[in-house]
């Protein structure tokens, strides 16, 4: 009896081990010859099909690490910094520009001039060819069409601090992502004193501080707040889902804040050739077209794709991108964060 039990136990252990070993072996057996590792902050549902298409065409396996918007705990940038001596990543595909520039300033990015790069305006390329910007999102005010009539729609950043909109507005907690970039742009445009006053006014007007831009969208769509500051991709998802929302460009007469995706090759990366191929593919017209047509409705930046339509073409201010110095904005981040902390944007009131 005991012998039978022992045999059963041994058989189970051997069986489980065999499954595990077989799994490991089969994974390795199926691996194509080449591999490229990409860290991407673009939402997985948008990035995954593009990377899959690249794999299909080139037979280069793509191993991706995606960022998670809701928690910001992933710290892909931190992961890159932590592994700077021996990076495991080849390509950094960021969905914004400031953190990429910060990495460049830390010396973590390699110089690479993609043959595709010249198709993009100079303002979206690094002067030292360490990164290239493509397919942008725009900062917009999203508003609930059932709560705000068309002639009362907020028109600019100043509306967030007006008493008539007290407890009606929402923004993402401005320490992360595109909202941090937006704050850095305002810092450059307004100067630290005006930004500091503005932040204090935001708090005084009970503007909700959400976990991310998607939460802002959800709150506005659900009618919890009348309007908020978000990105076009988040707004477009709500519009596609039939939520009662619409958008305007804040302070349209001064131009729109366009925040491009950026792609860069990591210095001393393990697979530089495959990485360069992926960068070339990401900067190709096909990818920009795909991102423009998809759920994120991103805005193509290549000069030869001006004919590609997006839902944002008729928005006032769409055709005038606000100029800002990316290098300065990245360098000013610690100061901007200090202002945000001073205004208690990291805490409840």
């Amino acid at each position, binding site marked *: 009896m*005991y012998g039978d*039990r022992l045999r059963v*136990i041994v058989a189970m252990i051997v069986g*489980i081990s065999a*499954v*595990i070993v077989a799994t490991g072996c089969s994974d390795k057996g199926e691996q194509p010859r080449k591999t490229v*590792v*990409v860290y991407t902050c673009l*939402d*997985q*549902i948008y990035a995954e099909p593009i990377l899959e298409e690249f794999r299909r065409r080139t037979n280069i*396996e*793509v*191993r*991706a*690490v*995606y960022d*998670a*918007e*809701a*928690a*910001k*705990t*992933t*710290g892909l*940038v*931190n*992961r890159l*910094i*932590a*592994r700077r*001596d*021996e990076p*495991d*990543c080849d390509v950094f595909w960021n969905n914004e520009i400031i953190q990429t520039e910060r990495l460049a300033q830390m010396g973590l990015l390699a110089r690479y001039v993609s043959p595709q790069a010249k198709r993009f305006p100079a303002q979206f390329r690094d002067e030292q060819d360490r990164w290239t910007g493509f397919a942008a999102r725009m900062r917009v005010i999203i508003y609930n069409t059932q709560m705000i009539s068309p002639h009362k729609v907020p028109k600019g950043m100043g509306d967030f601090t007006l008493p008539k909109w007290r407890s009606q507005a929402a923004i993402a*907690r401005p*320490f*992360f992502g595109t909202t*941090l970039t937006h704050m850095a742009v305002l810092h450059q445009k307004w100067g630290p004193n005006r930004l500091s006053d503005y932040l204090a006014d935001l708090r005084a007007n009970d503007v*909700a*501080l*959400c*976990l*991310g831009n*998607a*939460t802002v969208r*959800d*709150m506005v769509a*659900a*009618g*919890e707040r009348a309007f908020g500051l978000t990105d076009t991709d*988040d707004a477009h*998802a709500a519009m596609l*889902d039939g939520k009662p929302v619409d958008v305007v460009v804040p302070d349209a007469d001064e131009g729109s804040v366009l925040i491009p995706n950026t792609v860069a090759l990591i210095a001393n990366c393990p697979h530089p050739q495959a990485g360069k191929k992926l960068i070339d593919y990401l900067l190709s017209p096909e990818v920009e077209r795909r991102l423009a047509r998809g*759920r994120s409705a991103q805005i193509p930046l290549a000069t030869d794709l001006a004919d590609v339509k997006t839902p944002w073409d008729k928005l006032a201010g769409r055709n005038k991108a606000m100029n800002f110095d990316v290098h300065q904005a990245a360098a000013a981040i610690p100061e901007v*964060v200090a202002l945000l*902390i001073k205004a208690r944007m*990291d*805490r*409840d009131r």
Partner: protein
Amino acid sequence: MFAAKSPPLALPSAPARTLNILAELLVLLCLLPLVAAAIESVGLSSGQSKYAHWWGTLRGWEALWKTMQLASLATLVAIGLAWVLVTLTVHCSRRWAFPVALLSCLPMPIPSSTLATTWIVLAGRQGPLGKVLAGVGLSVYSIPAATMILAMRYFGIAVGILMVYHLRSLACLPAERVFRISRFTTALRLRLQPAVRITAAAGLIVMLFCMNDHIIPGMLLITTYGPQIMIQYSALLDPAGAAALAVPIAGVGMGMVILALLLGRRCWSQTEKTHVEQNPPGSPAQRAIAAALIAIILVVVLGAPVVVLAQRAGSFSAMGQAVYQARRQAWQTLYCVAIASPICSVFAAVLAGRWVRCRQTGAFTAVPLVLLNLTIPATLLGIGGIELSQHWPLRMIRSSSWPLILAYVARFIPLATLFFFVIWRNDSAVRNPAAKVHGITPWRTMFYLTWPRRRASVLAVTVLCGLLIATELEMSILLAAPGEATLGIRLYTLIHTAPDSVVSALTLAILALVGPGIVLFMFLLARVQTQRGVRTQ
């Protein structure tokens, strides 16, 4: 005259000595990520100033106070809810204890973000409960709402602990029955103190879980210490600053667990020696009322989120489609579970064995220290894991799944060890020396004597670890190798970008996968209880 002499305690054999050394080494290895995170916070040149920045000013204290405030409120609600449910269940029918405890634990596998989103849909301004809340001047984005959602997520822990306590101690004593002493008198004289102790112990454990959940408060716009850590880590690119905030808060968590163990231990030792008989069931009317109340509580806590998810998911085929699209991540999750949970179980068995032996002989062991890993935020272990993976020998395997698997082991070994210790601590130490006297080899003793007695508990712990690993998120996000995301990571990255139907379908699919695991765990737990009952008789 014929008093039996206790067998002399033999000196440990060579295999036992090896196991002892192995156990102490394992403790050291398990604590390495925590030590690495602590070094990260103080080892850099600016380490001390980071601590001064947080704890020399009001900032850190304010973050801690806010967190404790919310966690305390949620714990009070959770404990109240658990007491009502357990009391109703035990006095209604002891046979319901198992399914009720099982159902109470079901909200825990639902990711915090999904649960919060579900309640925002339910109780938001346009949701079915929104008008009710607005009528009493409340909104879902408020401390009361965050308190309720946190309580509903974690009250299953309290239900589990209190249910076991009730089953062991609330039956009537022979003396009460024979001498017709009123229940009230008995409760006042005998049961009040242990009940308060076990409630406090359960409360501390629930509070710890509530403290470490920063997703639900964050989504409801309530600030705890979580966002502060994120700001340090992601906006300021300052892991040392993040660790300087997290390490002392982790210390508070450790203190809470130690206190809970001390309270629980004393209470346990008071109740387990009581010879109990089952209370007579209540009248049919009382039982019907109790059943109705139990059903209402469970429907509110569990039914509402599941109904909302099902409504948003659309159909079974949508669930199937969601699983198909996530097949790679599902396979990766199963792979991690298949490797990490048996390792957890085996290592924990070694640790618990050592702990039990030391308890019986009064020797010193460092094994209880391993519980520290359970008390700290998982993110801190993740940061420690990243730090360790920069150095040999983990550097060689850092692009594989192994750093994550080892982190899972470090995180869940304490729970498994504690589980084994509680079950095995009263096992007789006489049987194995007896086998030795008869010349039976240690391996044969293990297979034929020890394993049959401990099989159910080992399998239960393996399943429990598997469940926890399958739903773990915080360390997975930090440590998953490129291209090897788990199911939890996929859900988390999709939650705000994919259509509602996809997210809901995937969540329901995860629940459907985890549900049978919970049933299996509870079944094995019942077997363990039965075996223990047989052994103690």
